[in-house]
């Protein structure tokens, strides 16, 4: 009998149906029954994981920390089994207008900064903890303006970063935060014309999404799922469009030692504490 595995994922964009349907067909041809449940937001997805509604979660980095924290409270174990190559070693940058007087992080004192959704690791939490650790407390030492596109999606949608970048060019904020690669992308699409901005700070590196399992996941199915993921080759024309859509070249083994920056952010800003308590109490 063939294995069955159910995945939970957040529907941050209509294309996720195309993506996971494509994966489903590919897994099916290789003897793995793959099914998926789409959630409107990561919090619902995380809680459902602990309620046993599915086997493996496609988690944002923040959702990963939520799962990890809840699991610790419940005496359970969470594991990251795979991730995209493109989710490794990201950095975020803080950008000002080229003609701005702001030259350094310290100069941001008393100014305003545009960030992404409140729950976006890359466009909000990590840049803000970078500033906090440099001695600038958000809200106390500088004004934070959130561009809340799709809260609950943990910044999966690029819209918040783009809105912040546009606000920067329209003089509505003095600085904006974004992923390193998006600074290049916004230059190409004209949101940030080349030469119009200057990068004043770059955060340390951090990892992004991963496939998360809990300790009660069905072992043979998970093993097969993971093996198949890692075997996907960009050379294979049947797989390549799926990888292109999902934005990776190759699946890597999961690693969890690159979430420290985000962990410091959520600890400092108490981003997930209430949620973790709630779910832990409901699921214990």
């Amino acid at each position, binding site marked *: 009998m063939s294995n069955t595995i159910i995945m939970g994922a957040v529907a941050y964009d209509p294309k996720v149906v195309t993506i996971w349907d494509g994966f489903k067909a590919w897994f099916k041809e290789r003897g793995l029954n793959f099914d998926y449940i789409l959630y409107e937001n990561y919090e619902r997805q995380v809680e459902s994981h602990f309620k046993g509604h599915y086997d493996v979660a496609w988690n944002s980095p923040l959702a990963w920390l939520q799962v990890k924290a809840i699991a610790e409270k419940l005496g359970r174990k969470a594991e990251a089994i795979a991730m995209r*190559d*493109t989710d*490794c*070693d*990201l*950095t975020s*940058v803080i950008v000002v207008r080229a003609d701005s007087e702001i030259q350094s992080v310290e100069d941001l004192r008393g100014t305003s900064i545009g960030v992404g959704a409140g729950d976006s690791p890359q466009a909000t939490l990590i840049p803000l903890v970078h500033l906090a650790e440099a001695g600038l407390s958000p809200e106390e030492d500088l004004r934070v303006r959130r561009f809340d596109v799709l809260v609950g999606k943990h910044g999966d949608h690029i819209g918040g970063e783009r809105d912040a970048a546009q606000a920067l060019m329209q003089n509505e904020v003095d600085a904006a935060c974004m*992923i*390193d*690669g*998006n*600074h*290049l*992308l916004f*230059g*190409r699409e004209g949101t940030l014309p*080349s030469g119009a901005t*200057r*990068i004043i700070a*770059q955060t340390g590196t951090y990892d992004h999404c991963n496939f998360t399992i809990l300790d009660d996941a069905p072992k043979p199915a998970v093993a097969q799922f993971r093996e198949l993921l890692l075997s996907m*080759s*960009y*050379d294979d*024309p*049947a797989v*390549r*469009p799926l990888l292109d859509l999902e934005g990776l*070249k*190759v699946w890597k083994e999961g690693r969890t030692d690159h979430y420290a920056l985000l962990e410091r952010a959520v600890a400092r800003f108490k981003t997930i504490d209430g949620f973790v308590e709630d779910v832990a109490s409901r699921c214990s």
Partner: protein
Amino acid sequence: MLLILGDLGLNEGAHLLLKRALAGVAVGDVVLVEGSAPELAVHLRGWCRAQGHEFVDEGGRLQVRRGSAQSGRWRGAERAGEATKVVEQANPTWGLAGRSATVEAGAPSFDFPLRVRDEVWAEEAARLYAQAAAAQWDPATAIPWDAPIEHPDEVEDAVVQVMTYLVENETAALIIPARFTAQIHPHFREVMQLLAIQVADEARHIEVFTRRALLRRPRLGLSTAGAQTSLKTLVDEPDFALSSFLLSVLGEGTFLSLLWFLHEFAPDPITSEVARMAAQDEARHVAFGLAHLTHHIQADPTLKERLAMAVHRRHDALAHSAGLNEEVFDALLLLAAGSWQPDDLRRGWQRIQKLESDMDEGRRKRLQRLGFASGDAAQLSSLHTRNFM
């Protein structure tokens, strides 16, 4: 390998130099990047991640280790035939790619029903296309729209009736190749182009015939059920070979005689000229129909039998329809006569007799060119629709 970018940034085109440098090293090898653009390290990190290369920043020494994705992308790619030669069967996954392009594996398959060479191809297609492209004319300037119209009112009514009839025939002649254009595999580019320009020809014909009709009258004349029934059998024919046989060889062939007749006997220079310009285009449409059916019959001699059957079938389908409507026939007669004088009417009548025998002769000649024996050609010609098209 060392790549020196100077102050050129990745947001200013430096990625091109980077790609070229990476193409020059093996997968797994490193390109050392030097440059003074202020955002180089940030952008390089983002770019490498997106492109599947490894980025290493060793205390400011920026290195890119070539990943395997780009070379993987073109593994298993297929050449879409050769630039100057067509294949017997075009591959659906070549899709919209031009002949001889390299097509990535995994490209979608397109459903072009006409992808067998012998069903569509004619060596003459390229030459006819070039001829057609060179012969495109501007309806605004090619026709002497301001020339005088001095004939009696009733003759003008006859012109309008004939134009009305021509417009619906030209519309059928536009729709049919337009539909097949989208069914032909783009590998047979010259045929696709030729049909497309044929459609443009018909668009002009519709325009000039309509404009001629409305010069002195506020609306077109009569459109009969019989004429439209005849044209509908053409529009409904799904087979490319049968359709171009009925439309191009027999229909447009017959129309050629009609248009030259109108050119010769039109009561005014405008009507004469719109007919002449259309006739020149029609000659190419007939030529292509003959050319690709000749090719097709050579490859598949049984096609001839199917063509003959199609004529019989259409004849049977139209047996109970009225054929060429009286209004059109009478209008042609009056137009050819030019007046109500009995002698003129007799001469007009004789001219129409001559027109019908010219049409029949033309059809028989073309059928014989396709390889029909003269007896068969005569019989098939006699079964052709009385509606001309």
